């Protein structure tokens, strides 16, 4: 129960941050990537604030504690390889972000203050996730 309440609190603060920062506003996000046109550099301040806070906070946590407060260990990603899947997937994500102006972290909170057309984006994104997961679950031809 504790874990659920702390995740809820983290989500509330995260979502409020997205809404206040403008990260949930596709017009603003797209303008960050348009220095040749209607440029709006705000997104650099969002990323700067988020990254600095997280980097300092993580450093403090990992420096002081062996375990998180409500779990027996820190669950950190273990993958180390930089492969075509990581680069190709990220490249594709950027194309979709550039078309729509929505990223997953921006769209979820945006559902709370601009349900339409955010819902259309999220439903399509869910379809994309399921499609990719289905492909990944397909049996692979074995190369000896």
């Amino acid at each position, binding site marked *: 129960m504790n874990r659920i309440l*702390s995740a809820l609190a*983290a*989500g*509330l603060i995260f*979502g*409020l*941050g997205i*809404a*206040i*920062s403008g990260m*949930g506003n*596709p*017009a*603003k996000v797209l*303008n960050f990537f*348009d220095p040749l046109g209607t440029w709006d550099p705000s997104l650099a*301040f969002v990323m700067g*604030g*988020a*990254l*600095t*806070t*997280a*980097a300092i*906070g*993580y450093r403090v946590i990992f420096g002081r504690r062996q*375990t*998180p*407060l409500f779990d027996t260990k820190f*669950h950190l*990603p273990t993958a180390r390889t*930089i492969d075509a*899947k*990581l*680069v*190709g997937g*990220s*490249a*594709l*994500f*950027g*194309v*979709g972000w*550039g*078309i729509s*102006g*929505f*990223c997953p*972290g921006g769209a979820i909170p*945006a559902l*709370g*203050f601009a349900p339409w*057309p955010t819902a259309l*984006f999220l439903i*399509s994104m869910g379809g*994309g*996730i*399921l499609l990719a*997961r289905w492909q*990944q679950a397909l049996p692979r031809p074995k190369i000896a």
Partner: protein
Amino acid sequence: MITDFTPYSSLFGGVLIGLGAVILMAFNGRIAGMTAMLGGVLEPKSPDSPWRLAFLAGAITAPLIATLLRAKFSFASPTTGPLLALGGLIVGIGVTYGSGCTSGHGVCGLARLSPRSLVATLTFMATTFATVTLIRHGFEG
């Protein structure tokens, strides 16, 4: 479409995003990546599903409550209809193969100096820039 440059509210909002990530790490020992959170919906039987759903619920509820309390958040979606749906589909496929998005790689991953996240973030920032430039300026003489 012109949007206002908002350094203060963007920085403040960014700090809150980072704070949310720090809280989730301090209490749950987890990365605040939205792509992974969505697994809470798609894998309802996973033991991680309840706390992931709680994070998602919080992320949607906070702006909703603020709006009901008459807060105003700027919003405009230049892309609509089938093109927006196409963008969503591509984002969904991309974040699944790329194992993360702006929050997981761009904030949490970079904050713990993950080389994978650095490569992912530089890659998607570059293709987003290329896509926006192509759509907005590619067909000008």
